[in-house]
């Protein structure tokens, strides 16, 4: 199923031949990027790391029956796929103009995360957190006497363990409740589970 012969790695740069970089639809995506002075890249492995994959297969706490997060997180919030995430990190995030947000708790994140993502656990973005304003400032908002203005707030892509978990939709709902413009938020529904299932590389606490 995942033995895509032609695609040993979509990671790139000039050293990779164009035949490898060319996707089925002919589009070529560049996946090398620099973050905080460190060269990073997205790549797609030929084999599947089932162990990691399994670790991302969690069930949302509140699920009684079928546990799949809605494809649309909230009104006005776009749902995006892997290519969008890769392009967003490689261009927008690396330029400091956007953030890829990992909404999981730190212990879940330790199992592995998407390169270029930052940790903003859903549990922190709650109206009773006294440091909520600081979190919003970190996302680009401006503050005056406790009032926030989101004109400068950065575009975000929010993800979690994947379709079976609800951290990302919950975080998105909280952000919007605080006044964050929905049109600046995107939801990567696939999350770690689909990302890993596609053979895309991850970073973890040891890397």
């Amino acid at each position, binding site marked *: 199923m995942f033995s895509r012969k032609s695609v040993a790695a979509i990671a790139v740069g000039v050293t990779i031949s164009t035949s490898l970089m060319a996707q089925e639809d002919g589009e070529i995506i560049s996946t090398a990027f620099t973050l905080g002075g460190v060269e990073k890249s997205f790549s797609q492995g030929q084999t599947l790391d089932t162990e990691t994959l399994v670790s991302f297969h969690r069930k949302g706490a509140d699920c009684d029956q079928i546990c799949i997060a809605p494809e649309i997180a909230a009104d006005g919030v776009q749902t995006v796929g892997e290519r969008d995430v890769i392009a967003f990190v490689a261009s927008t995030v690396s330029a400091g103009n956007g953030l890829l947000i990992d909404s999981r708790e730190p212990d879940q994140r330790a199992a592995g995360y998407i390169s270029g993502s930052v940790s903003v656990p859903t549990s922190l973005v709650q109206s009773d957190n006294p440091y909520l304003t600081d979190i919003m400032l970190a996302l680009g908002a*401006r*503050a*005056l*006497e*406790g*009032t926030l203005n989101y*004109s*400068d707030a950065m575009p975000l892509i929010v993800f979690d363990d994947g379709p079976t978990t609800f951290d990302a939709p919950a975080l998105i709902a909280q952000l919007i409740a605080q*006044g964050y413009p929905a049109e600046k938020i995107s939801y990567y529904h696939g999350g770690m589970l689909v990302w890993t299932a596609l053979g895309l590389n991850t970073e973890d606490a040891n890397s």
Partner: protein
Amino acid sequence: MNMPDYTPAKSSSATPWIIAVGAVTFAIGAVGAFALAQMNQSRQNDAIAVLAAQLADMQVTRGQSPDLLAVTAPVAATPVSIPSASAVLAARTPTAPVVATSQEDKVAEAIAMVNRNKMRMLTEGVVAGLYSVTAENAEGGSRIALNSRNAASTAAELEALLAKAAENGDIDVPDSIATADGKVDSQTLLFELVQRSLQGSSESEVAAAQEMRARAFAASAAKTEVVAGNRYYTVQAGDSLAYIALQFYGSTNAYETIFAANRAKVASPDQIKIGQRLLIPEA
């Protein structure tokens, strides 16, 4: 024969002529000055007549519904401690026009131009929270506007009146209200008047002033750039220093903060230029 005698006689008869010409010139000048004063007076009279007519209309309405504010806001049903709007009250006692020197005087004059009752109604509405501050699309982008719920038409009329008065030179507009493209920012002037009328020390006024700052700040769609920890804003067409202050500090008065931080490139508050990058100190 008597020529020598004529000459002095002639020259002596020239004196009355000079006096006459001088007198006529003076008269023309005086009449002209009087006429100018009259014209000026009639312009103001026109404005005042319009306001008086509007006030009469309002009183008719008031007669039908004794407590106008109570209809829209139960809050206001309790005798509202009228924003002791020092400026508004001060302006209520007619004073002789004085030469405006400081910004304070200019604003007091502006307040004197507008109808006291309307201003009070608007201010009361602000104290009662009957307003919103929204970003509205205007030429050249989004602009913050004050939308009064208890006195919507009043706010619009006041703004129009202020714009006209400023255009006619009936009020001397503070430098901070002059826009980068050389116009008068009447919407910001309206904010300025309302904010000034909320400078009292009563609890309700202090709270209302803070709430208004918060709403104006939150409504701004202005984008900034942060370089090495410093925030910069690029002046757009239609911006005045007071309007920029309104967006980043919620108060027109805070223009001084921005002016002080950019003294090196801004000679006076009305000298900002489109495309200029201004340092916006953290609030």
